[in-house]
Every structure is written in structure tokens, then in C-alpha cells.
């Protein structure tokens, strides 16, 4: 197996599903050719397996459909909410008006290739990327098991990320050369942005499964959806809770100095300011720093009643502990990364009462989720996390689109990008005018070392008897 950057074509056919549970990472999947007889050409628009047997979990948009502005957040959180702007974007979803839908299918296909851009090996997102890949592999294996005689198998064409600015652009261009019909990834916001730009030029649809950067889908490029709720959803919910329900007025921000936290924390601070509570401090730290006495001293001097922490879980867990040791009693808040064990481990008792947002309760008893957990555990030998769940869901959307559209990138795009709702193992998704999932997020609190989810009804779209209410 080559080291970074590695290149792997893995064909996940029926036989591979019988493989023993594995704990390997993105680089360890066996390469090989398809194990099935090939057909001369893929048949476009073949009906997905099981499509007629159950109500569709895919609800598509109608042309010209109008969407609520600004991620469906309360108007108080909108920018310049007291005036009507000259022009409002994303009220409708940007159509793709170019040609391609009637281009003939390739006649030499031996499989239906799907691309994946992993995180760089050894980087902060590597372990999340491993779980992402596992969810995608499981979805592809299942789809290949269910395919009918004559159907082409799905292939995963996978590239390990390159830890430098612009590296994902090279990989996205390479995936185009490898003639993928669509691709999945990435976790890193910078990588996802860079790959998206290539996506527009190459006209290959991208399903992002795990980048919460809210700006990713705000570019008007109609070749991308994101299945994971973004930081706008999380931070909007969090700020409302902090200011409106808990009465916090003096909010300090402690974050890493990278792009991820800059984009996320500034959105959070904008929301807090719009609710009348501009941040009293914004302090930065270097990822991996062990002690930050200057920052802690400055925060203490500002006498906050709430501290918003953003960074890798191990870092912010360590600093939560140091903040408590410095005598700071302000309550801690954060977003999804606080869910990870590294935060709890490093924060110790300082985690008590910490409140954060997360996408869904992993203990939910919805049969789609519990069934996925069981199959995932059987395949990989350990529990899935949210990254695995969203990756599985993102892959399902891509696979479904490819089954419906056939090997035509433009028609696959239509099936992916025109989704309004999708019910995945992580719950119902609701896509806005930017193509981002705006399903309500959950509020979680650490109590006695346990993660306690605030009660909240599951979101269900109107067509399935639910309401469109944003939050309880």
C-alpha cells in the first residue's frame, strides 16, 4: 500500500460484504477488480432497488420553489434584519442551466465510480475521516449486494487528503480524470471549499457529509449539497439558549486561530451581537498548545458569565480545566466537537454543566438508526459516530441518484441537488436554498460525566405528518 498520497480503487461487490469485521482505516481497503460479470453499458434511469415497496424517503423540489431565508433561523439572527435588503439570495435554489443531461452514456463502463476525498493522514480530522469512510463503504457494500442482474457495481475511488492549501483541488481534478460520476467528502472546510471550485469546472456533483462551515454552500454553485447541519444551525440555537433562556450577557470567546474557528466563531459572535450581547473577549490559541496563561488571564479580567469554546476537543477540554483552575466560574458552551471523548477526558470535572449542540441523540431508538448501528458494528467491530452516520446517509443519496439517473453526471446532479427532504439513519434532513441540511440540532449538557440530551421531538417533514417548526 502506498503512503500519502495514496490511490486506491476498491470495488465493493457482494462477496466483500461477507468479510470479517475490520478495524482498518481509509488506506487499508483491499484493492481489486469487480467480481461480477460486466454488462456492455449502464442502463440509465433504472429504478432503485426496493423503490416501489415503501414510501419514498426522498422528496424533491419543484422548479422555482421558494425557501425560507437564512437557514430558517429566527429573524432576530439575520444580518441587517431590520431593513429589507436590495437583493436576497438563496430564496430559490440556483438551477444548473448548462447542457449535458442528454449526453449519451459511456459505453465502456465496467462500474459506476464514486470518488472520496479523505482527510490528510495524521491530521486533526483523520479519525473522523476513518469513520466517514466506514459509513460510505458500508453503504456501497449494501448497494452492491442488492443490485440486480445486469446492474453495474459501484466503485469507490479514494484519495487521502493532502495537508496543504489547495491540495484538495488537485485531488478533485484527479477524480475528474478518473471519471467519477460524483464524489463525497470532505471534513475539512478548506478542503471542501477548494474541491467545490473544481467541482463547478468539472461538473461533478459533490455530497459533503461532514464539513460544518456554513459558508461552504453559500457560493451559488449548484453542484453541492451538505447532509450535516452547519455551524449556523448550531450557533443560532446555542446563542438563543444562552441569551434568551439562560440570560447570559457577558460572553467570552476562546478559539483556535485557524480558518475553521475563525469562520465559526465570528458567526457565533454575530448572533450574540444581534441579540444585544457582543462578545466581551475573543482570544485565540494555537492548536496543541498546552498552557495559555495570557488568554486565561484576559478572560478572567473580562468577568464573563459564559465562555464559548471552539477548537479541537482535546484542546478546549484542557483549557476548560485550566479556566476552572484559574477560578473562572462562567458556564462553558460549544458546538458538536464537545461531544467527543477527548473533551470530557481533558476537562474532567470542569466539563460539568458544559452545554453544547449536536446533530442527533446517538441513543435514539429510531429503527433506521438502530438498524444502521447493528450493521455497522457487524461490519466494523465498533459503534458508529455521527460522521459515520452522515457519511452513510450522504452515500445513500449519491447511490440513489446514480440508480435513478444512470451514468450521467448532469442528471445525477439533478437528483442530488434538487432534494428538499431525505430520511436517513441520522433522521430527516431538510435542505434549504443553498443545499444545506437545516434540520434542527439538539442541545446537550454534561451532567456527572454523562451527556444529557434536552428533550426534543424528532423533526418530520409536513408530507409525513410533521411540522416545519424550527425548534421546540
Amino acid at each position, binding site marked *: 500500500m502506498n503512503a500519502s498520497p495514496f490511490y486506491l480503487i476498491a470495488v465493493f461487490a457482494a462477496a466483500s460484504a461477507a468479510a470479517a469485521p475490520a478495524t482498518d482505516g481509509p488506506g487499508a481497503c483491499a484493492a481489486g477488480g469487480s467480481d461480477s460479470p460486466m454488462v456492455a453499458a449502464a442502463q440509465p434511469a433504472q429504478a432503485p432497488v426496493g423503490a416501489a415497496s415503501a414510501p419514498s424517503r426522498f422528496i424533491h*423540489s*419543484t422548479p*422555482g*420553489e*421558494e*425557501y425560507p*431565508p*437564512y437557514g430558517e433561523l429566527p429573524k432576530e439572527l*439575520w*444580518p*441587517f434584519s431590520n*431593513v429589507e*435588503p*436590495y*437583493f*436576497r*439570495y*438563496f*430564496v*430559490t435554489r*440556483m438551477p*444548473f*442551466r*448548462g*447542457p*449535458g443531461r442528454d*449526453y449519451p452514456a459511456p459505453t465502456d463502463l465496467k462500474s459506476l465510480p464514486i470518488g472520496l476525498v479523505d482527510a490528510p493522514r495524521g491530521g486533526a480530522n483523520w479519525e473522523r475521516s476513518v469513520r466517514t469512510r466506514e459509513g460510505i463503504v458500508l453503504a456501497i457494500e449494501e448497494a452492491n449486494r442488492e443490485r440486480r442482474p445486469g446492474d453495474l457495481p459501484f466503485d469507490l475511488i479514494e484519495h487521502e487528503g493532502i495537508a*496543504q*492549501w*489547495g491540495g484538495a*483541488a*488537485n485531488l*478533485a*481534478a484527479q477524480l*475528474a480524470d478518473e471519471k467519477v460520476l460524483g464524489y463525497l467528502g470532505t471534513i475539512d472546510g478548506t478542503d471542501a*471549499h*477548494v474541491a467545490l*471550485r*473544481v467541482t463547478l*469546472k*468539472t461538473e461533478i456533483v459533490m455530497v459533503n457529509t461532514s464539513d460544518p462551515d456554513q*459558508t461552504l454552500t*453559500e*457560493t*451559488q*454553485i449548484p453542484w453541492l449539497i451538505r447532509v450535516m447541519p452547519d455551524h449556523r444551525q448550531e450557533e443560532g440555537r446555542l446563542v438563543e439558549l444562552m441569551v434568551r433562556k439562560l440570560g447570559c450577557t457577558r460572553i467570552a470567546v476562546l478559539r483556535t486561530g485557524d*480558518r475553521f474557528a475563525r469562520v465559526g466563531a465570528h458567526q457565533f459572535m454575530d448572533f450574540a451581537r444581534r441579540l444585544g450581547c457582543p462578545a466581551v473577549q475573543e482570544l485565540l490559541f494555537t492548536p496543541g498548545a498546552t498552557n495559555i496563561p495570557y488568554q486565561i488571564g484576559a478572560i478572567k479580567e473580562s468577568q464573563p458569565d459564559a465562555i464559548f469554546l471552539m477548537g479541537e476537543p482535546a484542546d478546549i477540554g484542557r483549557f476548560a480545566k485550566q479556566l476552572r483552575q484559574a477560578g473562572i466560574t462562567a458556564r462553558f458552551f460549544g458546538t458538536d466537537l464537545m461531544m467527543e471523548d477527548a473533551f470530557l477526558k481533558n476537562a474532567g470535572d470542569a466539563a460539568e454543566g458544559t452545554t453544547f449542540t449536536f446533530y442527533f441523540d446517538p441513543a435514539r431508538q429510531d429503527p433506521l438508526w438502530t438498524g444502521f448501528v447493528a450493521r455497522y458494528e457487524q461490519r466494523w467491530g465498533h459503534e458508529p459516530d455521527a460522521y459515520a452516520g452522515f457519511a452513510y446517509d450522504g452515500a445513500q443519496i449519491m447511490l440513489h441518484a446514480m440508480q435513478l439517473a444512470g451514468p450521467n453526471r448532469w442528471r445525477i446532479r439533478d437528483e442530488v441537488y434538487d432534494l*428538499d427532504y431525505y430520511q436517513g439513519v441520522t433522521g430527516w434532513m431538510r435542505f434549504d436554498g443553498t443545499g444545506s441540511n437545516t434540520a434542527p440540532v439538539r442541545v446537550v449538557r454534561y451532567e456527572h460525566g454523562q451527556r444529557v440530551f434536552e428533550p426534543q421531538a424528532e423533526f418530520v417533514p409536513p408530507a409525513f405528518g410533521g411540522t416545519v417548526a424550527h425548534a421546540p
Partner: protein
Amino acid sequence: MKTQPSSPFAALFGLVFVLSHAPGMNASAALPETAPLPIPVVARFENFTEKDGLPAHKIHCVLKAGDGRLWLGTTNGLCVRQDNGTFRRFGIEDGLSHLTVLGIAEDPATGDLWIATMQGLSRLSGGKFTAFTQTNSGLPNNVVYGVAVAEGTVWAATAAGTGAYDIKTKAWKPYDQTNTVMNEPWCYGIAPGRGVIYLGIWAGGIVEHDPRLGTFKAYRDPDGEFHIALTADSGPIVDVTSGVAYDAGVLWQASYFGLARYDTQEATWRTWVQDKTPLVSNFINSVFAHGRIAWASTDQGVSVTNGDTWVNYQVGKDGKGVVHICRPGQPPETRTMATALSDGFVMAVWADDHEAWFATSNGLSHGLFSSPADQAALTSNP
């Protein structure tokens, strides 16, 4: 969720269109008498597709070189239109660094071509290609979105910053978020200005760089929000720049959110968005400037404007050309043409005072201009 209502501007266009196409009424009868337009008008399109020898459906860029030869950047290599009208393709086997060509620039001093591709920058000099990549040169990234040559320097806009190559010294200098005012290094376009270089930055607006002084100045969206344009005419339409162009003291910004113009002499901005202005679509793939006139290539045709008068070229449902003309203070006019753009999804334009070439997602179009005296003839439906 409900259906989007049509805009008043679109409705006005529609009304004029219906009137001009009503039975027994030709377009000229429904349109007011007008003076010649201050911008060129295409009288007829000639189209070229794969059937005519083009190597691909999609043409990303087009350039007419100083020697009169027409060069095309396609998804299947570089292409030149030869004297006999046929097309000759150059691919990787010829030394081109990648098949997907996103931009072409000519060195006015030597006639060399610099070619932006998805895997490096290529130079075509004396019939030979030389490839510059991030591993064999100082090119910041292999995905090169745009290229320009100015005063002995080649400027390459890449996915990880702009690279400046001094042709004489062969030295590279990178420009990114570490040594300029750009907050992101993702560069999408390059336009030489008067003594300065304009860099179109994705999520960073436009950066103006004076190479002699080593200074940088950023032009950013005043509201800083992607979801809205708070006010008109206040600055770049958005920070997500898809292309820039400069000529005759006017800087143009293309974006997927509309069009913006900066008059460098008056230091004033103007902006245009679809439905509220004559701009045919917010989704602008690129913009080309000739004199004080801009050619905006959009997903719904081309908008040509000097900022006041507009001529839009679209493809009708029947495949015929549809021309919208907007003069200041007058209702828009809609005319039909017997010929149309090869495809409405236009990637790029090259134009001078005599002709225009259109790179589209499905072929190449040649626009032959009418003389001012001929413009009235366009009002008759052929």
C-alpha cells in the same frame, strides 16, 4: 414552500416580448425608433461544434492572438483555428500539462501563449510546450484558473494563491494570505490594470496589487454577507469573485451573485443583479472588457453593457436568438434573430471593435457585428 413570483423587470420584458410577437405584429412595429447603440450589436452568429472539428462540447476560454489566430481552451485540450477554418487540437501528447484548459493569455512582447490548466501552467513558445507545475516550479498550485501577462511577468491565479513568474529571471513569487491582504488564497481571476494587477479572490473580493510599490488594497463587499446585497452600488457585489476584467479605467467583477463595476478614475462602484436590473443572470462565469464595455458570460446568455445601455443575447426555446436591448430611460426591447449562440451557458467571451467570439458549454460562437446603420434591420423578424 411556494413558487417564486416573477419580477417586475422580467414581467416588463415578457410584455414587450408578447407584444412584439403577437399575430400580425412584427417586432419593429412594437418598438420605438431609436438611435444607434453605443455598444456593438451582433447581427449574426456563426456556430462551431464537435461536428465542425472541435475536440469537446465545452469551451472554457477563447483568445484571438495578435497574429489573428483564434485559440480555444476546451475540456479536451488546447485548440487553434487554422487559416483554412479547421481546428487543430493540442493535448498532453504534445506537451500540454493537462487536457482541461481554463485560461489563455498572450505575451504581447513575444507572442508566446501561457495556458492555465487543471494540472499546471503551460507555455507555448516556438511551437513547443513547457509545463510549470507546483513540483517543478514555484507555481502555488496545479489548478490554475486564470492567467495574464503584464510587463514581463506571468500572473497565474491558482487554488492556493497567485504565482508571479518573472520571464527574464525565471523567478517565482507567491501571493497568498501570508503576504498580502487576501484573507483566503483561492484565486479565480487575474486582470492587469494601469500599473497594477487585480486579483479576483474567492471569498476575498478583489485585491489590487502595485508590483512596483509592493502595496495591496482589498475591495470587499460592504455588507460582508452572502445571503444579501444590502444596498446597490456600494462596492463589490459579493466577496465570492468568479472573474475580473479591466480596460480603459474600468474594473469589472464577475460573480455568481451579479456584476459589479469600479470606475477607477471616479472611484465609484455600480452593481447589477438579475430581475432588478437588465443583467440577464446572476450566475456569471467570467467577464471580458474591451474599452469601457463589458461582456458578461452567464448561464443564461451574454450581457453586454457600458453600465448604462445593455444588450443581452439569449437562446429562445425555439433555438432562435433572442436579443434584449435596454436603453437608459426607455422600456426594454426584445428582438429575435435567425441565428443564436451555440448554447446559452456561456463560459467566456473575447471581443474587439469588429467581432466577438463566445466559448460556450456546447460549442463556439462567432458574433458578427452590425454597423450602426444596420441595427434597425434587426428589428424585423426573419
